[in-house]
């Protein structure tokens, strides 16, 4: 079963029946919102191919199936805003119950975003051979949300691994490997993947146990991620990571990323521009 079929198996039955009669190969995401028509994302734009209205029970059914009727096992990730189901990342939105030291729980889930992971081998091979074929330096991949950072990160891991680098991959949301007890996506023969663990923890675990030359991680969003990156760099490990931004100026407007840039760990910025098949990949050296 491919990822799109897995996602369709989660959909409300009426919608799933309608989806089976159309071409679903280009779908990037499914958006399910209570009281609204279900939407699919094609080329970055939402479309509504069905007239059915999503009910609360449809959302509950998806959550129950995605968590294997074991809500307690997904509670932590739901509080982080997602559920992982067999390599699919399901973003969740609802009512958050806060407590003093952070999120206590998320209830009354009212919308879901089911993202279909994609593997596009060779998308940045030209860029790779121009910039990283001889030696690799720490690189930050940036694009706006939904720009394809995870796909490029996966491809970079595979290509670096093909150059015989030992790549340690911290796959917090199981999006990079996206496995379901099988081999998952191809991250290369020299890659070691630790999944479902926060990036800061996972990178230290890899550092201690797997002797990596490069550590790859998706979406730097927390101060502890930056601390971990500083430690990795201090130990002589190169870092390959992603962040939400359109470029260096964008990064500099945010305190967290200014701190990251001040560390002077990342030497290259890999920018993804455009949507769908029109994506352009550019690399530039980061000037201090």
């Amino acid at each position: 079963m491919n990822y799109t079929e897995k996602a369709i198996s989660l959909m409300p039955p009426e919608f799933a029946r309608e989806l089976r009669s159309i071409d679903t190969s280009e779908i990037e995401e499914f958006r399910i919102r209570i009281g609204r028509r279900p939407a699919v994302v094609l080329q970055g734009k939402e479309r509504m191919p069905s007239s059915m209205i999503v009910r609360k029970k449809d959302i509950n059914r998806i959550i129950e199936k995605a968590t294997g009727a074991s809500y307690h096992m997904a509670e932590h990730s739901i509080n982080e805003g997602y559920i992982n189901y067999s390599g699919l990342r399901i973003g969740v939105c609802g009512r958050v119950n806060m407590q003093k030291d952070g999120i206590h729980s998320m209830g009354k889930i009212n919308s879901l975003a089911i993202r279909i992971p994609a593997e596009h081998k060779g998308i940045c091979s030209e860029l790779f051979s121009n910039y990283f074929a001889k030696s690799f330096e720490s690189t930050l991949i940036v694009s706006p949300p939904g720009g394809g950072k995870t796909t490029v990160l996966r491809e970079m891991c595979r290509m670096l691994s093909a150059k015989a680098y030992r790549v340690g991959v911290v796959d917090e949301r199981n999006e990079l490997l996206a496995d379901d007890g099988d081999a998952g996506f191809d991250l290369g023969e020299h890659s070691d993947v630790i999944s479902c663990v926060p990036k800061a923890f996972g990178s230290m675990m890899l550092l201690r146990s797997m002797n990596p030359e490069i550590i790859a991680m998706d979406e730097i969003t927390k101060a502890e991620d930056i601390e971990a990156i500083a430690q990795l760099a201090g130990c002589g490990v190169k870092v390959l990571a992603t962040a939400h931004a359109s470029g260096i100026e964008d990064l500099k407007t945010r305190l967290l990323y200014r701190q990251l840039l001040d560390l002077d760990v990342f030497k290259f910025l890999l920018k993804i521009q455009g949507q769908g098949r029109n994506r352009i990949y550019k690399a530039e050296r980061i000037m201090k």
Partner: protein
Amino acid sequence: MRMLAFVLMMLSALWFGLELSRTQKDRLDLLYSVSKLTDFMRSELSGRPCGIDELCKKAAETNSGQTQRFLIAVCNKMKDLGDESFRGIWSNCCKEELQYLNSDELGIITALGDSLGSFELSSQLLAMENCSKELKNKYQKLKEEYPNNKKLCIALPCTASCMILLLMI
């Protein structure tokens, strides 16, 4: 001829009585086993949380008889999750597999399925604790009644067959 009829009547009455008593014993054993199951699930979930399907698989390995069949049925039907809700799966498996229990006892274990897997861990543990307590109460009560019930199960049919014999004479 009458003697033979009497002997046959007595034997069948005795068999009926023993069978009735055995059914009660099976119900007693099943109640005990199911209450132990909720204890096991509770301790497993509080010690090392795992998914409900994994929990049922583990529990099936340490159980036998109807309890084991019930757990295996839940595991098998978990594959249809989505087409059927977990609550429905649990409830149907209770009805289909835990046949020795009466409706009251079945209600207790069925109600556990309403909270199992759907809420945060502490709520589930509490639901299991309550379920176990209720089942243990039922078990204790039945255990106390069992010796008298057993005697009654044997004595009543035998007395009835003696009375029939007297009427025949």
